[in-house]
């Protein structure tokens, strides 16, 4: 595989207001690269949900977007609490978010399902007390 173009972002865990800024930037960068609108939309929605999760569940982390010739990979890494039960977390409607988060418009338990829906593959590596790394891939072919 040829070398990937990499966009790297630090996601601030203390600031709900700025959450999503990395996804907004990625959307701009991918537009600049001339990718199809629907592909960009899928990538940006999936990354936005993941970015929000890092802020509301894991106190921030890092996001890397790797652009290959035939695919885009999004890698979200945090050192938050980890996910105890991935199957449960993947269910639509399952959420451990607080009422405060819900009043801010998130915590409907649709984030991880949305991330899976909009990408071609999604892999979750998580360890309680250590953190979570989510890798999502979208094929360009």
């Amino acid at each position, binding site marked *: 595989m040829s070398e990937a173009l990499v966009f790297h972002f630090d996601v601030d865990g203390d600031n709900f*207001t700025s959450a999503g800024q990395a996804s907004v930037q990625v959307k701009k960068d991918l537009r600049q690269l001339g990718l199809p609108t629907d592909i960009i939309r899928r990538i940006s929605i999936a990354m936005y949900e993941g970015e929000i999760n890092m802020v509301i569940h894991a106190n921030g982390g890092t996001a890397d977007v790797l652009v290959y010739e035939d695919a885009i990979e999004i890698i979200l890494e945090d050192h938050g609490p980890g996910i105890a039960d991935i199957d449960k977390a993947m269910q639509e409607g399952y959420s451990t978010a607080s009422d405060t988060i819900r009043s801010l418009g998130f915590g409907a338990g649709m984030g991880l399902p949305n991330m899976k829906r909009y990408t071609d593959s999604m892999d979750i590596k998580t360890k309680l007390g250590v953190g979570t790394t989510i890798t999502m891939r979208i094929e360009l072919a």
Partner: protein
Amino acid sequence: MKITTIRDLLNAEVYCNEENLGRHVYSACGSDMMSDVLAYVKDQAVLLTGLMNQQVIRTAEMMDMVCVVFVRSKKPSPDMIDLAEETGIVVMATDKTMYEACGILYSSGLIKERKANV
């Protein structure tokens, strides 16, 4: 439906991107939960919401939406308008409730939800 029509039907005040009032909207989504909005992609949609923070604008931007309507007399903050300005999204506010606003748009013909193939 043209965005100007939405403005007129809802008697709404427009806060930014007036130059895009002539754009067309083909579907609508009413919710205060952003992940519910993010679950279904619709073409050139309008988002109606009672939620008031910057994530509303980012959600609409991620979805390539063309218009956001704040219901129940809520006025967007300068921060939100700044954020929306560079996206081209028309932002407006109406004193109608969510129920009324959705009902008015629906009965005026903004019905079809065209789910994109994703």
